[in-house]
Structures are given as structure tokens and as C-alpha cells.
């Protein structure tokens, strides 16, 4: 393989942002026909490295050569013209346009009278089909499909440019097993056609399944380039987090089942809670100290149910009892007032408030519940911020920079901190570990268990069945926007159990 001439060579790349050296003399070499992974913790510099290559960020030192020619691109357009197709970490599409248009933007098929929409949409359809989205009509407005599906659309878009280099920054972060397999099928096809693929993911299984070569970063420094096949897991983890894998002992921490005493009143008791078009009526009990997992395929309605519980959407049916008293959770404010918190799956659009600092982002929810004119005393505020920066190990440890400048994973941690700061009794986490590195993921899972142990009710929504099964006491299974089953977790329950349930049950709860 190495005898091939590299297509991309990045040497000594250094990028400084005010206050951080995001990259410090990092090297990266891509060969045609191989899948190369950038490995590193949240904030290690993977996305920055990618943006350096495509010219989104200007490099302060180092050199980039593509096919032997020195290059310094002025943004994605340039890179694209040089045959580099990129799917960035945060989905970047236009929500005001249709799915099909998003796929084809800039590459619309043209006829004698300018763009030929018929041809264009047909083309879009084939590209979408590649990603297993044949069921989406290209005319569907992008705004009406889930983050996960948007991510697939973004990848489909990258396929339109038949590129020499394909860059995928955490494409699998919100996909479920099936989609991932689909994606890998395509990646292999593309790779075999001689394209160099640069891939980022925090899932080691995926790394070992798909990649040939790894470049490991830590805190913006280049650690090592290795072949995947001859690098054992814990060595890799060691290189990534700088301590031996053993110290990640918590990984695999398992919830010790919370038994419910007979006659105990549930923390949350909803009956027939639903909203036309988004989720059909659901009955649900959540007890103090219990972790309830929502499992289901993409679009199954997990998020919708979570949003209803938080009042982000107004339910149009059902009753809602919290701590034994009837409540009308009509909007997030009342939810928070009732000590219900919800951490969104859509970090960029519904989570972070980009230009505000990490501190402000952490405190704002608590502040909102206290009311505008009752500011949090400085001391108290500092205490809270320090506490969660520490506990959630947010990096960099500087609360006064804009949150938008944090790496994806660290933004997620800050948001979790925001909700914990409101001391909720019910915490709804929608894809909380999405895009989080193994270390941090373990930390967050631990946090969830600790909170439950302290008596908080937790709803845990995740596309990773593995963690759902491991952390939950009860698993609500959703399909097609119906709750189809409630599985009491136990040693007999495994991921397979749930997959089967989904496959074999149809929406009205009967065996298929």
C-alpha cells in the first residue's frame, strides 16, 4: 500500500485560535484507495485538521500538497474543484430547500432552458437511494426530517462530486446500526474505486471494521500514524487519551436495577400523551431514581416523545402527572419550573447559543427559571460553572470563550452541565453521547447512573442500543411513532431482544 504515491500530504500543520493552539505541527498523509481515520478525544483537533485541509481555516504554519502540488485552498469550493469532497461534523444543509435540492445544489442537471428539474430530482433520488433513503421523496422539505436523516442526505450530497478524496467527519454519530452498515458498504465501494477516504468516528468497533490506517492526535499534537490491523484497542485508547486503557475502568459500568416498592407513586405518570402527526398517545410511568430508555429506529418518535414530556411541543391529548399532582407542561419554562429538563439531540439548532460564552450557556437555563431580574450571585454562578466544568471535564477549561468555538463533544458536555445546573427531578437526555469520545462517554454514562442513584428520574434516548440496554431499568420501544412495547430490563434482555421486538411487533402492539 505504502508504495503508492500519497494523494494528500499535510506536514507540520499548525493552527492557532485566540487562546488555543488547536493544532501544533500535525502531519497527515492520505493514500488513494484506503480509509484513513483521524483519532482523538473531543477537542483533539480532528475537525480543525479537516477544515485546515479544505481551507475553511487558514493554517499558520505547515504545508499542504495535493497530488504533489502545493495547495492552499480558500474554502470548500476550492477544495471541491481539486477533487476533495467533505462532509463536516455539523450537518451543513439548507433547511429552506427540499431534500433533493440539497443533494444537488451546485450540481443541478441542466438542459436547454437552464436547470432541468425533472432530471435533477431523478438524479437526487438515485443518490438518496444509495444511502438507503429511497423512501424519501426528493421534494420533501429538509426541515421536516430528522438530524439523522439530514446527516445521510449530507453524505449523499458528497457522492454527487465524484471526488478523489472523500472526507467524513463523524458521519455515523447519529446513525443506527443499519445505516452504519449501509454507509460502510458505500465507503468500501468508493475506496475500492481508488478514492482516499478520511474518516472520523468515536466508535472503535467502526474504526476497526472500516479503516486501514490511523493518525492519532492528542490536544492538537500529532502522536502517531499506525496501521489499524496491527494496533490493539487498549494501545490505541492509550495513545488517544494519554493514560492506560485500564483507567477507563468505568466503561461498561452497569446499572444495578432499581426495584420499585409496591404502591410507590411514580415521579411521572402520563396517560395517552400524544400529538397528531408526530407521536401517537403513549402511557408511561417513570419512578424516582429510575433510568428509562427509549429505543427505536430513526424516525420512530423517540425525540418527539421526549419533546412532549418537556413541553417543547404542545401535546394535543393525554394527562400528565408529576410528583402525584396534575401538571400542564405547555412550554419549556413550565417544564423547568416543575424541575423537568431536556437535552436536545439537535445541538446546533436547539442546544447551544453560539456567541454566548460557555459560562452563560451553562447558567442560562437556571437563570431563566429564576427570572430575568433575579440574577445568580457571582459567587454561586462561579461555583456552579467550576463544578460542572470539572465534573464533565470540559476542555478547554476556560468558561469565558464562546461555546461555538468548542469542539462538538465539549459543547455537548456544557449543555449537559446546563441542565444539571437546574437540579431537575426528571432529566430527558436525547442522544447525550452523540459525538462524544470514549472517555467522555464513559464519564457521561457514569453521571447518568450517579444521578439516578441520587433519586433523579432519567429518560435516556439513544440510537446506540448497547448503552440503552446497559443503563436502563425499563426500555420503552417505539416504532412508527407508536409505543409498541415496554421491556423490563434484566439479564435476559439484550440488544437482540429489542431488535426482535421492533421487527416482530406491529404498531398496535400485537405480535406481527
Amino acid at each position: 500500500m505504502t508504495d503508492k504515491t500519497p494523494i494528500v500530504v499535510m506536514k507540520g500543520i499548525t493552527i492557532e485560535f485566540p487562546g488555543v493552539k488547536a493544532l501544533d505541527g500535525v502531519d497527515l498523509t492520505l493514500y488513494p484507495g484506503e480509509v484513513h481515520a483521524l483519532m482523538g478525544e473531543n477537542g483533539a483537533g480532528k475537525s480543525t485538521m479537516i477544515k485546515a485541509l479544505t481551507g475553511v481555516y487558514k493554517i499558520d504554519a505547515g504545508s499542504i500538497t495535493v497530488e504533489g502540488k502545493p495547495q492552499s485552498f480558500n474554502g470548500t469550493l476550492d477544495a471541491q474543484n481539486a477533487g476533495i469532497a467533505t462532509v463536516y461534523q455539523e450537518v451543513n444543509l439548507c433547511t429552506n430547500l427540499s431534500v433533493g435540492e440539497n443533494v444537488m445544489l451546485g450540481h443541478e442537471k441542466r438542459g436547454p432552458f437552464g436547470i432541468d428539474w425533472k432530471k435533477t430530482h431523478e438524479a437526487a433520488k438515485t443518490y438518496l437511494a444509495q444511502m438507503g433513503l429511497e423512501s424519501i421523496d426528493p421534494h420533501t422539505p429538509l426541515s421536516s426530517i430528522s438530524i439523522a436523516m439530514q446527516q445521510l442526505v449530507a453524505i449523499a450530497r458528497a457522492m454527487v462530486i465524484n471526488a478523489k478524496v472523500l472526507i467524513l467527519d463523524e458521519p455515523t454519530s447519529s446513525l443506527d446500526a443499519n445505516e452504519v452498515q449501509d454507509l460502510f458498504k458505500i465507503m468500501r465501494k468508493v475506496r475500492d474505486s481508488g478514492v482516499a477516504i478520511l474518516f472520523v468516528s468515536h466508535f472503535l468497533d467502526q474504526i476497526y471494521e472500516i479503516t486501514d490506517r490511523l493518525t492519532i492526535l492528542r490536544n492538537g499534537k500529532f502522536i502517531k500514524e499506525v496501521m489499524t490491523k496491527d494496533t490493539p484497542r487498549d494501545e490505541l485508547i492509550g495513545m488517544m487519551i494519554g493514560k492506560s486503557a485500564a483507567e477507563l475502568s468505568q466503561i461498561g459500568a452497569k446499572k444495578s436495577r432499581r426495584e420499585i416498592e409496591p404502591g410507590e407513586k411514580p415521579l411521572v405518570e402520563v396517560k395517552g400523551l400524544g400529538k397528531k402527526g408526530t407521536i401517537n398517545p403513549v402511557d408511561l410511568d417513570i419512578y424516582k431514581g429510575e433510568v428509562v430508555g427509549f429505543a427505536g429506529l430513526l424516525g420512530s418518535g423517540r425525540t418527539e416523545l421526549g419533546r412532549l414530556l418537556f413541553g417543547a411541543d404542545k401535546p394535543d391529548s393525554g394527562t400528565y402527572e408529576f410528583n402525584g399532582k396534575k401538571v400542564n407542561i405547555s412550554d419549556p419554562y413550565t417544564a423547568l419550573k416543575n424541575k423537568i429538563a431536556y437535552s436536545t439531540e439537535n445541538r446546533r439548532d436547539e442546544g447551544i447559543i453560539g456567541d454566548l460564552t460557555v459560562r452563560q450557556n451553562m447558567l442560562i437555563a437556571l437563570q431563566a427559571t429564576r427570572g430575568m431580574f433575579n440574577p445568580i450571585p457571582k459567587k454561586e454562578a462561579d461555583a456552579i460553572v467550576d463544578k460542572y466544568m470539572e465534573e464533565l471535564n470540559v476542555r478547554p477549561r476556560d468558561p469565558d470563550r464562546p461555546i461555538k468555538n468548542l469542539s462538538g463533544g465539549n459543547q455537548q458536555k456544557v449543555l449537559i452541565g446546563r441542565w444539571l445546573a437546574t437540579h431537575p427531578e426528571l432529566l430527558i437526555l436525547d442522544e447525550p453521547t452523540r459525538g462524544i469520545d470514549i472517555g467522555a462517554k464513559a464519564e457521561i454514562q457514569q453521571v447518568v447512573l450517579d444521578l439516578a442513584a441520587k433519586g433523579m428520574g432519567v429518560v435516556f434516548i439513544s440510537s446506540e442500543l448497547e448503552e440503552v440496554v446497559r443503563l436502563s431499568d425499563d426500555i420503552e420501544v417505539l416504532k412508527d411513532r407508536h409505543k409498541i412495547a415496554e421491556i423490563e430490563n434484566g439479564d435476559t434482555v439484550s440488544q437482540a431482544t429489542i431488535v426482535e421486538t421492533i421487527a416482530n411487533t406491529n404498531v398496535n402492539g400485537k405480535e406481527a
Partner: protein
Amino acid sequence: MAEKAKEEGNALVKKLLGNNLTWSIVAFILLVVICTIFQHDFLALSWNTNTGGLAGPLITMLQESARYLMIATGMTLVISTAGIDLSVGSVMAVAGAAAMQSLSNGVNVWVAILIALLVGLVIGCVNGALVSLLGLQPFITTLIMMLAGRGIAKVITSGENTDASAVAGNEPLKWIANGFILGIPANFVIAVVIVILVGLLCRKTAMGMMIEAVGINQEASRMTGIKPKKILFLVYAVSGFLAAIAGLFATASVMRVDVVKTGQDLEMYAILAVVIGGTSLLGGKFSLAGSAVGAVIIAMIRKTIITLGINAEATPAFFAVVVIVICVMQAPKIHNLGAAMKRKRALKAQAKAVAA
């Protein structure tokens, strides 16, 4: 040690260069210098016995700047929520009309002032309601109010330019616009005090942060329990109220409202002031101090036009040129020129090395 000090020094310089405020102040000083060159006693201050205050070009400039300070402050909050308030100019006219008309109808001066402020507040609230409750677009909503406002002013005075200069007992109002506090124009002092109050209100409570949050990402703000609608309503109401004060300043200085001219085009000046002050029209982070400086700069530009005796035909062009220069001065591209050059050279060198 010395190294470190030096480094910090550089960092500070960088910070300053990056900061709009710095450039606004530079611009202001430049204007003053230019004026002083043309009119050597431009900075001269004398004590005017029959007004009982300081007199001189700068003083009249400050006197005029008061109204800009008011509308610019309101505009800052509105713009921070990613909105815009084109109606401030008209609101000034309405408030002025209300005050002058009621005065000349024999209403007590304080009541007249109160009426004017209320009228402004009400219009602001209407804007707020339309934008927040009905979810109309700020631009068109306030554009409508800008049209209608003129009409309302005309209705109030039945098309006349009501003159209350002769009305007995109008002194307090007259004083607000023409009087002096410790030799400094009263309206300027009042304006500055109000700006500071608003500033404290924003920064000492969570109001400022919440306004910014709504401006940056309304949906995300809603998810944190903020009530965006309330915030939106609030800022437009405030803007209307402050515009009313500006209207009082503008009309009281001559104790006469001009239904067409009072406040005409001032919404544009206010927006300019805000942008010069470093608040983005896209909403988000805002700087009241910046807007205040911006407001004074606007007054200063107008002063410069008079001082340089630029004739009527050329004034708009001159105004445009100054604004463009200021904005270009603030463009990051300009600040980073040096750095960019250095980087380019370095990279070229490396590229060569690699190629070789």
C-alpha cells in the same frame, strides 16, 4: 519577565485593534482634528451668560447628539434580537406633536411630557405586539409604523407645525432641550444618564444576556425556558419609549414640532450609530457603549459638514464617504493585513521547501 510583559502588551494591542470601539473613537478624534484645522477655535469653549452654560461648537454638537443617543440605545436592543425598528423617527414626530399640541391646548407642561412619553411607549408596544404575538417581520412591521406614525403626528396637529414657544409655563420642557447642568447641556446629561441606566439594567440583571440569546438562537433560547415573545415585546416597547424622549429633545429645542421634518431619516442614523458601535444587524451580542459613541459620531459628522461648509448638494456624498471610511477602518481584513502578509510569506517559503 520583560518578555512576558511585552507579550501581554502585544495581546492588549491586538485586542484593541480588533475592537470596534477603538476605531470609532479614532474616527471621532479624526473628525475633531479635521474641524479644528478648518476652524481653529473649534475646541474653544466659552461661558455663555444668557444661556447660563458653556458655549462652543462642541457644546452644540453634544446638544444635538442627545436625541441620537436615545434612539440608538433603543435600536441597539431591538437589533440585538435580530430585529430592526424603522419607526423611531416617526415616533419622535408623534411624541413631539403630542407634547406641543397639548401644551398649546393649555395642558400642564409635565402632563404634556407624560403624554408624549406614553404615546411613544404605546406605539412601541404595538410594534412589540405585532412582532412577538403575531410574529410579523420586524422590518415590514416597523416600516408600516414609520408610514403611519407620520400620519398620526399630522392628525394630532391637524397638519400644522404646532408651535408652543409662546405658551406660558413651557420652561421646564424648554430647559430639557436648551438648559444646562453645571454648564453641560441638560439633554446630553439626561441622555447619558438614561443610557447608563439601561446599561445597568441589561448587565446587572440577566436582561442583556437573554436579549442576546434570543437574537442568537431563538429556538435554543426557548428550550432554556426563556420566553422569546416577552423579550421581543420588551425591546420594542423600550425603543418606542426612548424614541419619545428623543422626540421631546428634538421638538423642545425649538418648542415646535415639524410634522414632516421632525425625526425624518433619523432611524437610518440610529442604525448607523449602532453598527458603527459594533453591534451586528444579524443580532446577538450588543454594546451600548459602542452605540453611544456611534451616536456622538453621527452628531459629529453633521457638525463637521457645517464646519467645513460643505454645501447642501454635497452633504449626502460626504456623509456616505465618512461612513464608508469608518466601516472599512473597522473591517477585520484591514486589521489583519499585516498578519496575513506574514503568514503568506511564511507559507510560500515552506511550499517552496516542500516542492524542492
